[in-house]
């Protein structure tokens, strides 16, 4: 085992640093009036969410709104810098990864405790990871991060080593997420539904005071919390006494409630309503979600999409700038790679360009000739595809439909519910899958694209790109990983496995009373530094 002292994590971002710094300009933190103001302790912040998924257990949730609540209740082994992607100590005061990324050794800081007073020791880390494995499918994110875990060695109270039976470079970043956030050992024996209902003991700056599904969750400041990561805006207890997350499902109600000061902040303002909050007592903060951008995954087991020319032609026919300019918020930008610009190891992919003429040439090469109705055809078959999707705004794909029509491709759309989309996908005959996936680690590419993985969104045979995806998971050398990720992305685009469209972003709108409500590296909300002025 070659030790990589934690300092090496500093090089994690490498070439992407400049770009990330650029993206970070837009994510300086909630409250434009923050600069120079002296933070005030105390008070309650009311934050509106749109959906309640009936569960707030950090180790089980996967929905953005539930994550906003859950994230505040747990501390993690590591923390990730939102600007550089660098992983640094939180509950673990240091960590080491071996060369082939199969073994991760953590040294725990002395002092931190769970909310019931028990110390956060090595044995409790083991208990947590085992509990997540036991939750299995219920911990849909966490159990993915732990896939391949072979053993957990507890050397003494402060030293724990996690071993995998295959390379798993993503695990280090996973330890910074809420999904692997630490809960008191006694919680491991609570039932899955008790934990969902908020009956868990955390380790973070806030604890659950009450949770009424569909109505509200109230978090109270954890007295004695004193183990914030060095990168945090302050040390010690959280500044707010409490946070009230109210569930407001109706978009118009969220807008009106914020305008009339019945809530202090929300991330659920419709893009069309954002203009109402420009200045005049409100401020907005935007950050792109890291991970895989919104993209179309061609189903390569269908005859027409087996042809690389067709897939690449579709990608080249999409005018991404037109989509973001006409349909999305002022801060939203088009996809510049398969990964979004806030993802560690992000680099621009120049081959991703709008070039309808090249698209037409590719289609002619494959024998698709323009028919009388403007749709291309070959051997009597139309160049027509269908896609079922639920993601808002639904107009994005409607514009893609118009753009593809220009080069003679007919894209049929069906806007539906999540359940319908998943049922359609289960048949395996749908032409495309549409979606994004948030994760601040490039291994997210392997999750969705790898032909050797369980998802295999392209329904394809393994090839060169899968070797690259496996290789990036197996190296803890940051420069090497950067190179491999870039090469994999280039192949994904040039072979048309991914048809990227735009970057999902999160916009928080706050009243000017709210300060320092920020995004963490995964674009989840962080209330630890937040404060509220009278």
């Amino acid at each position: 085992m070659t030790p990589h002292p934690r300092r090496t994590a500093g090089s994690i971002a490498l070439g992407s640093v400049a770009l990330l710094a650029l993206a970070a300009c837009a994510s300086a933190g909630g409250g434009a009036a923050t600069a120079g103001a002296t933070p005030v302790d105390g008070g309650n912040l009311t934050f509106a969410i749109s959906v309640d998924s009936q569960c707030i257990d950090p180790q089980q949730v996967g929905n953005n709104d539930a994550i906003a609540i859950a994230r505040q209740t747990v501390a993690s082994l590591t923390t990730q810098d939102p600007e550089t992607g660098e992983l640094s100590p939180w509950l673990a005061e240091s960590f080491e990864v071996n060369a082939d990324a199969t073994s991760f050794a953590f040294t725990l800081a002395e002092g931190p405790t769970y909310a019931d007073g028990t110390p956060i020791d090595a044995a409790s880390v083991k208990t947590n990871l085992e509990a997540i494995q036991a939750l299995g499918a219920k911990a849909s994110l966490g159990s993915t991060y732990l896939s391949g875990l072979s053993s957990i060695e507890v050397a003494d109270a402060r030293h724990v080593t996690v071993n995998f039976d295959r390379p798993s470079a993503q695990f280090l970043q996973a330890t910074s997420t809420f999904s692997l956030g630490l809960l008191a050992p006694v919680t491991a024996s609570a039932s899955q539904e008790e934990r969902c209902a908020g009956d868990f003991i955390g380790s973070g700056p806030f604890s659950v005071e009450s949770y009424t599904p569909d109505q509200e969750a109230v978090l109270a400041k954890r007295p004695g919390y004193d183990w914030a990561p060095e990168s945090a805006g302050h040390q010690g207890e959280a500044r707010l006494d409490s946070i009230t997350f109210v569930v407001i499902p109706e978009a118009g109600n969220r807008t009106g409630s914020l305008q009339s000061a019945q809530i202090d902040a929300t991330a659920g303002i419709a893009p069309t309503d954002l203009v109402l909050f420009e200045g005049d007592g409100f401020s907005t903060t935007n950050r792109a979600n890291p991970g895989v951008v919104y993209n179309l995954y061609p189903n390569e087991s269908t005859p027409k999409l087996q042809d690389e020319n067709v897939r690449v032609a579709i990608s080249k026919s999409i005018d991404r700038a037109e989509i973001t300019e006409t349909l999305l918020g002022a801060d939203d930008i088009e996809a510049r790679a398969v990964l979004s610009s806030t993802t560690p190891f992000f680099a621009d992919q120049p081959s991703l360009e709008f070039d309808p003429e090249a698209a037409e040439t590719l289609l002619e090469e494959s024998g698709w000739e323009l028919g009388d109705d403007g749709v291309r055809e070959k051997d009597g078959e139309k160049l027509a595809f269908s896609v079922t999707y639920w993601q808002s705004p639904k107009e994005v794909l409607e514009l893609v439909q118009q753009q593809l029509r220009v080069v003679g491709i007919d894209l049929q759309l069906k806007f539906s519910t999540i359940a319908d989309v998943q049922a359609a996908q289960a048949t395996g005959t749908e032409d495309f899958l549409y979606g994004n996936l948030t994760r601040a680690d490039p291994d997210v590419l392997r999750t969705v694209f790898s032909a050797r993985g369980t998802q295999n969104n392209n329904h394809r045979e393994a090839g060169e790109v899968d070797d690259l995806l496996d290789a990036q998971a197996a190296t803890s050398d940051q420069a090497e990983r950067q190179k491999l990720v870039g090469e994999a992305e280039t192949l994904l685009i040039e072979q048309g496995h991914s048809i990227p469209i735009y970057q999902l972003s999160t916009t928080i709108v706050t009243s000017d009373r709210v300060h320092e409500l920020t995004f963490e590296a995964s674009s989840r909300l962080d209330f630890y530094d937040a404060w509220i002025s009278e």
Partner: protein
Amino acid sequence: MNRYLAKRLLQGLFVLWAAYTLSFLILYLLPGDAAAIQAGGAENGGVDPALVERLRAEYGLDRPLWEQYTTALARALTLDFGTSTQSGTAATAAVSAVLPQTFALAATALPLAVVVGVALAIASTFARWRWLRQALSALPPLGVSVPSFWIGLLLLQFFSFRLRLFPSMGNEGWASLVLPSVALAIPTGAFLAQILSRSLRQTLEQPYIELARAKGAGSARVHFGHALQNAVIPALTLAGVLVGQLLAGTVVTETVFSRVGVGRLVVTAVNSRDIPVVQTVVVFAALVFVLTSLVVDLLYPLIDRRISVTGASLVNA
């Protein structure tokens, strides 16, 4: 009377069974299942098939349809409707936890709807001027056809966002009940007014009313002394529908006003194919419907002595 009640009880049980079975079939036939939704998370388009299979096994969705149905039905007979696939709690507990909130909403909206509906129906036939009668009788169709979420948003915009008289969300205190119950009472009251005013108009054309007028009864005496009592019967017949409409109305009202309740619960449950929770709500709604109809039928003889409940069935003597 006892035989009548026994028969009604059997009918009621049949309705409950039918509601349970139909909702089971519909939910089963709808595309998508709870396992795929749970495994897919909130954003990722793709799902891990192995994960879905594990969840399907956990929820029992991998068994044959008839087996799922018979075991579920057998348990339902012991009032166990299964476990919510979203939260893991018992479905009956999930529903009964929010029932008081919906009951409070319905219990304030219903009297409001009855008062407004009856008043509007009487005013639209009783008013002295023809133009006023016409104007008033145009209101119920309007109230029925305007979307209730729009009414809700208008009320919010004016009374909550602008005047800040009432909160825009939540279940706390009577103040949070005012706007939702008004929003819910409008379509329900309009529906009642529509039925009652039509039946009043028909009654007022009856020969016995002519007779009463000829005998010199004034308009008020004709209305309240003679017509109303008879006109009320058709409206009462539809009480079950009215209560059903009220329950259905809570879905939109609770969503717009961010209130906890059965309506909100059922929306999330349908969207995530949480069959146990949906079925608990459906059976509960059917039970309310059955009980309302029974109460109404038992009330008829008290209102109109010509109607009596005999051994076999309701007889209009």
